[in-house]
C-alpha cells in the first residue's frame, strides 16, 4: 500500500514508512509551480504564431542556402568588396557616433537647459523617420546643389553624395539615436554623486567626465556602440538614396543583397547568411547585458 501512495499524498506519521520526504517535497513544489498550470488558449496560440513568424523566415534562409558552394561564393571579389565596405563604413559610422553622440548624451543627461525636451525629441526623429526620407534629407543638405553642399562644392570642390563618405554619413545619421539613447540611459543609471565627489576633490567638469563618468558608463557606451554598429551595418534606405549603389565604393552588403536577388539569388542568400551570422554574434555579445538578465 505504502509504495503505491503518490509521493505527495500525506502519510500517517509513524504508521507507515513514508517515501523519502525530500522527494515528496520536490514533487509537491513542482506540481504547484505556475509553469505547470495551463496557458490559456487565446494567449498560447498567438504567442506560438509570433514565435514561428519570427523564426521561420530565418529557417527558410538556412534551408535554401547553397551550402555546397558557400565557401567559393564567400570568396568572390564582389562579395568580399561589399563585406569589406560594409564593415569599414559601419565601423567609421560608429566612430563618428561615439565622438558626437557621447557628448550629446552627456548634455542631455547632466545639463538642464531650456529646450532640452525638444532636443531629446529631435534626437529620436531618425529613429522613426523612414530611412529613405533621411537619405533624401541628407541629399538636399549635402548634395552638390544642397543647402550646405553647394558651398562645399564651390569653395573646396568637395562632393559628398555617391561616395564612401556619404555611406558613412548616411549610416551615422540613422544609427546615432541608438547610441545617444543608450548612453544617456547609462549616464542616468550611474550615481551622479560620484561626480559630486570628484568635484569636491578639485576635478573640473571635463576632468570629472574623463576620469570618473566615462569609466563608469563604459559598459553602457560599449552596448550603445554595438547597437549603433549593428544598425549601421544593416542600413539600406538612406544609403541607397544618399550614396547610391556603386560596387566597391558605396555598395554595402544590404545593397548587394537587394541587387543580387535580381541576378543571382543564391549569392543574395549567402550575403544574407553573413549578415544573419553577424547579428547573432551581436546578440551573443550582448547576452550578458540584456538577454541574460533574469526576469
Amino acid at each position, binding site marked *: 500500500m505504502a509504495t503505491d501512495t503518490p509521493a505527495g499524498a500525506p502519510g500517517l506519521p509513524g504508521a507507515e514508512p513514508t517515501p523519502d520526504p525530500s522527494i515528496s517535497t520536490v514533487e509537491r513544489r513542482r506540481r504547484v509551480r505556475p509553469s505547470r498550470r495551463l496557458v490559456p488558449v487565446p494567449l498560447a496560440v498567438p504567442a506560438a504564431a509570433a514565435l514561428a513568424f519570427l523564426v521561420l523566415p530565418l529557417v527558410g534562409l538556412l534551408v535554401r542556402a547553397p551550402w555546397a558552394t558557400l565557401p567559393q561564393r564567400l570568396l568572390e571579389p564582389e562579395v568580399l568588396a561589399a563585406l569589406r565596405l560594409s564593415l569599414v563604413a559601419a565601423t567609421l559610422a560608429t566612430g563618428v557616433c561615439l565622438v558626437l553622440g557621447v557628448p550629446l548624451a552627456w548634455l542631455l543627461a547632466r545639463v538642464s537647459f531650456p529646450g532640452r525636451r525638444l532636443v531629446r525629441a529631435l534626437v529620436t526623429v531618425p529613429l522613426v523617420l523612414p530611412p529613405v526620407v533621411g537619405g533624401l534629407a541628407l541629399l538636399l543638405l549635402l548634395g552638390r546643389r544642397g543647402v550646405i553642399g553647394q558651398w562645399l562644392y564651390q569653395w573646396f570642390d568637395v562632393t559628398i553624395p555617391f561616395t564612401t563618405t556619404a555611406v558613412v554619413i548616411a549610416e551615422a545619421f540613422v544609427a546615432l539615436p541608438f547610441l545617444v539613447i543608450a548612453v544617456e540611459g547609462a549616464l542616468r543609471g550611474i*550615481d551622479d*554623486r*560620484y561626480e*559630486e*565627489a*570628484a*568635484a*569636491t*576633490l*578639485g*576635478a*573640473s567638469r571635463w*576632468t570629472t567626465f574623463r*576620469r*570618473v563618468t566615462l*569609466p*563608469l558608463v563604459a559598459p553602457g557606451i560599449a552596448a550603445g556602440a554595438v547597437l549603433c554598429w549593428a544598425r549601421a551595418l544593416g542600413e539600406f534606405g538612406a544609403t541607397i538614396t544618399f550614396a547610391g549603389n556603386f560596387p566597391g565604393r558605396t555598395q554595402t552588403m544590404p545593397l548587394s543583397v537587394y541587387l543580387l536577388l535580381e541576378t543571382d539569388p543564391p549569392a543574395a542568400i549567402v550575403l544574407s547568411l553573413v549578415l544573419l551570422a553577424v547579428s547573432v554574434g551581436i546578440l551573443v555579445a550582448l547576452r550578458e547585458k540584456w538577454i541574460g538578465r533574469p526576469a
Partner: protein
Amino acid sequence: MTTVDNQDTGPYASTPAPPDAGLRARLVVDRTTFRLDITLTVAPGEVVALLGPNGAGKTTALRALAGLTPLTDGRIDLAGRCLDDGGRTFVPPERRSVGVVFQDYLLFPHLSALENVAFGPRCQGASRAQARAIAYEWLARVGLADLASQRPRQLSGGQAQRVALARALARQPALLLLDEPLAALDARTRLDTRAELHRHLADHSGATLVVTHDPLDAFVLADRLVIIENGSVVQEGDAAAVTARPRTDYVARLVGLNLYRGRGEGHTVTLPTGLAFATADPVHGDAFVAFPPTAVALHPDPPQGSPRNTWSATVTGVTRHGDHVRVQLAGGPGEAAADVTPAAAATLRLAPGQPIWAAVKATETRAYPAG
C-alpha cells in the same frame, strides 16, 4: 574683555578665531517645504559637530558648504575668501578648499585605493608620481598602506571609511566636512573607527565639521556642538554644557533627560499642565526643569512625603534598555521616561495602559532659565 559665556552668546561671538581664518557662514537655503537658516563658525583646528534629527537640514548645510547646493541667501567665508554670497559670488566645488567624506564614501569603484586618494592631488596639478607618493603617505597615515592596490569593493566598511578620509585629507582642505562618518559601519567597527577618526581629526589643522545624528559621535569627535532642528540652530556649546542644560525635547532625548518648560518662582517651577515641580536650583520666569529617567520612582499607590513632585500617570511603553527597564509614561507633566530595575518592573507588573504613580526628588532635578 567682555565676559565669556559659552552657552548663551551669539554664534559669531563665541568664536575664538580671528575673523579671517577658519569658517564663518550664514547658510540660507530655501526649499519648497523647508528653509535652512543657520550661522556656523569653525576655527582652524576646531572640530564642530552639526547634530540634529533626520530632516533637520544637516545634509543641506553640508552641501551648501561644499558648493554642491548654492545658497539662497547668506554668505560663506573660508580662510578669508568668500565662497558664496547667495548671489553674484559662487565658487564652484572644485575651486573650494573643502574636502568631503560622504556618508557612503563614494570611493570611485574603477580606481584602486591609492588612485582614489591620488585623485585630489592630481587635480591640483601634481604629477602622476607626486600624486601617488602623496596618496601613499596618506594611506600609510590611516594604516592602509598594504591595501593601496585594492579596489573599493574589496575593502571592508571601516577600511573604505579610512580611504575616504585619506582621500579628503590628501587635498589638505581648509575645511573638512564629514557626513555621518560612522553611520555605515557596524557597531563593533564603529567603536574602533570612532576613536581613530578622533585622532585624525585632532591632527587636521583646518576646520572640521562633522554632520551626525548620533550624539555619541558628536560628543567623542567634536570640541563643540551645534544642534539644529527644522533648519534652525536650537542650541550650541560643548558637550558638558549641552548635556547639563538641554533646551529642546530633541536635545533632552539625545542626552537622556526628561525636559519640561514652565514658570519658575523660587524653588518651584509650574508647568502649563498645572503640575508644580519643587527644584533644587532657584529660578525665576520662563524656565526648564530637567531630570534623568533614573530619578523617577514608580509606585502602585500615591506616595507619601514630598507630594509636589508626584503625579499619576499611565504606562505607555515598557522596553528593556541595557540592564534596566525603560518605562514610558503619559500624564502629569507630559511624556516622561522612567528607568527601573527589572525586579521593580516585575513587582509592579508594568504593562501598557496601566495607571501608576511617579515621583521625582527635588534634589535630582535641575532648573535653569529658558530665556
